[in-house]
């Protein structure tokens, strides 16, 4: 066991106290867990470069990050590690982008960077074969497990229409900064899986969502989990057979990467990248219809070509 990942007694007790305090305040469950930068949506789009170079350029050119308080914060980087497949098949987030993201937040003085996903396939195998475990660990992150119910805490969703209550991973609840790092793919039934749908990886029972109207549930989930930063890996984009993919021929080498503080903007931009109309993606339409980022008109977009 890696020693750096062990928590000292002091921090543990601190966490216990904070968890108990939080649980004893009923209003806790009603507050919005993550305060996103609601104000102005920004989006930086980078193209033509290696995954690592694009990630670096994105961090450099995304003006939001420079003013962000990161020092001593606990950061959760949530890539898509859903599938037990090799990076070339594009079903999981590119490990190069994950490691650059982890490196960036560690350089900016983050106290701890966690990387985790509740994989759809066997979690251990997925962590390994996606290349993300190795990349994240060597960049200094902690690979957190998410395969057992005991890591999850029950959370109410006050504004949820179909999904009223779900179990969310304790790191996602306790972290200071939530970095959503999906990979852009088509999806058999939701048309697209990207930033909004990627949040299904921090909850315990994703099949509950499937059985209770998937689109509405994704929208409901997004009312309670609000990532501060969303980074979309559009380097290898799966244009068919998503989200798992069956072969490399499903992939188009798009060589792009987007970063935004607004999940609606980034999903809207991603939908266009897949040549889809954002209105056709029901969960995005339900959640973002009346949000400023939906038609990208009010989003401040910066385009960078390497």
């Amino acid at each position: 066991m890696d020693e750096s990942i062990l928590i000292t007694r002091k921090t543990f007790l601190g966490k216990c106290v904070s968890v108990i305090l939080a649980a004893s305040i009923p209003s806790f469950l009603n507050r919005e867990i993550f305060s996103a930068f609601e104000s102005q949506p920004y989006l930086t789009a980078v193209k033509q470069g290696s995954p690592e170079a694009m990630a670096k350029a994105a961090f450099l050119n995304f003006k939001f990050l420079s003013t962000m308080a990161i020092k001593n914060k606990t950061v959760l980087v949530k890539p898509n590690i859903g599938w037990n497949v090799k990076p070339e098949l594009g079903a999981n987030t590119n490990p190069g982008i994950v490691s650059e993201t982890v490196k960036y937040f560690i350089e900016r003085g983050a106290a701890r960077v966690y990387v985790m996903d509740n994989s759809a396939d066997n979690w251990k195998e997925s962590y390994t074969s996606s290349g993300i475990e190795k990349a994240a660990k060597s960049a200094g992150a902690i690979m957190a497990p998410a395969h057992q119910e005991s890591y999850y805490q029950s959370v109410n969703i006050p504004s949820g229409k179909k999904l009223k209550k779900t179990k969310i991973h304790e790191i996602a609840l306790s972290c200071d900064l939530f970095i959503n790092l999906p990979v852009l793919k088509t999806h058999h039934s939701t048309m697209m899986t990207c930033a909004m749908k990627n949040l299904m990886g921090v909850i315990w029972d994703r099949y509950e969502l499937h059985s209770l109207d998937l689109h509405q549930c994704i929208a409901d989930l997004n009312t309670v989990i609000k990532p501060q930063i969303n980074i979309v890996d559009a380097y290898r984009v799966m244009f068919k057979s998503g989200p798992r993919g069956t072969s490399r021929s499903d992939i188009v080498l798009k060589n792009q990467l987007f970063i935004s503080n607004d999940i609606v903007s980034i999903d809207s931009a991603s939908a266009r990248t897949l040549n889809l109309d954002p209105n056709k993606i029901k969960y995005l339409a339900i959640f973002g219809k009346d949000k400023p980022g939906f038609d990208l008109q009010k989003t401040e977009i910066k385009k960078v070509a390497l």
Partner: protein
Amino acid sequence: MKKFRVIISILIFFLFSAAFLNFGKDWLLLQKIIKETQLIPSVMNLMYNLSSTAFLSVAVILFVTFISGRTYCSFFCPLGVLQDIFSFLSKKSFRKQKFSYSYKSHFRYYFTGIIILSVLAGTLIPLNLSDPYSIFGRIFSDIMRPIAVIGFNSIIDLSASVKIIIMTKQKINEIIPYSLIVSAIYFIAIFVLAAAKGRAFCNMFCPTGTLLSVISKHSIYRIYINDKCVMCGQCEIVCKSQCIDYKNSAIDFENCVMCLNCLKSCSEKAIEYKHRTSRINSPNMKKDKFSRKAALKWIFSLTGFAAFGTLLQSLKFVNLLTNHSEAAETMPVPPGCVSVEHLRSRCTSCHLCVSVCPTNIIVPSAAPDGFKGIFQPVLNFKNGYCTYECTRCSQVCPAGAILPLSLEEKKITSIGEVQLKIEKCIVTLQKTDCGACAEHCPTGSVFMKEKNGLHYPVTDSSKCVGCGACTYVCPSEPLAISVMARGIHTSLKPFTSDGIEKTEKQNEFNF
């Protein structure tokens, strides 16, 4: 010399325990090595698959026995070492064991004869119940592993600091009461037998021990009592196999498991391990004095035995006896099994595959199905699904019941066929999108088609490998999608899994 034996055997015991507990890290290499060391599974593999590696293992084991006696029983047999540990524990805690010489009847030869005949007749039940390696495997896989996992997980729960992050909890494999209870009975019986009678199991029931005895009777190096003997009787007291008759200075070497306790116990150095001399000093050898009559008797009985066995085999006697239900014949079994029949006729039920399966879908069969075998593995898709990128079970099977598959072969081996009941699907019932089945399908044999703005699942069974992912994730109750197991596995047309990704010439943002 005894020290050497103890060190080796404890090492072997730990390695086998690690392989069967399959805990924490990946023990695949170890599991691949130990599967080659066991006699009975190797014999099955040699007999039915003509495997060259199995031939080598059998040849090496028999050759070593011919040279040195039944060293295998004390050095390499995990159940033998377990019995020694039981003896040791009972000696420390209850009472000092005192063994005394007892004449061994030919019971075990008849017993093994029955096992051989039953195997030829087409049932592995007697073999499944008596192979020492498989008994050890079942004890560790069915009892020790759940105990270890529960213990480990409760330690994590207790030390909550670790619970918040990291040391990850292990998943327990599904407990099959019937297999667990039988293994527990074995555990207790072997403990009692070992505490009371030393290696009695090895010289009464064990088919490996009996087969090796036939050879060790004629082995080149053996244990002798020489003229220095002062008739103190210490060696007889410590002899776990009760094969030393010190009063007659005789050692019944075919029953000797080469524990070497006697060598250590003798203060006069009157017991030697040395090259065979012309002296006949085994009490059994005296009785079996070689005569023409005896030779004829042996030849007749062996020929008769072989003829009877061949007859049973050609008749497929058990097939005549049993009336296999359709369901039993088409049970889901791991890829590499070729067919249910293939698995049934080879598996010694060691449960190594049960231990190594990362998704715990390989479980001992929940009840005896037919007369062909007992505790043999089946797949339970309720626990998970067969990982598309995994060939572990096929790599560790010692008996060749699950044949080794390369990943490419495994990916096109179909163990079942997808069956969709669209009227039970969430999309049909609730008119909301779901798509969990298509999402998980690794081959694209389940996919979604749009109709009236909703996406309905469609299946293409020509691509289905029967991994069970769609069944496992289906949120419908009752299940809308399931896998119909194949009695005989088939090979699909290879997929173009490594196509070329497209590159766009004009890389522009679409917004």
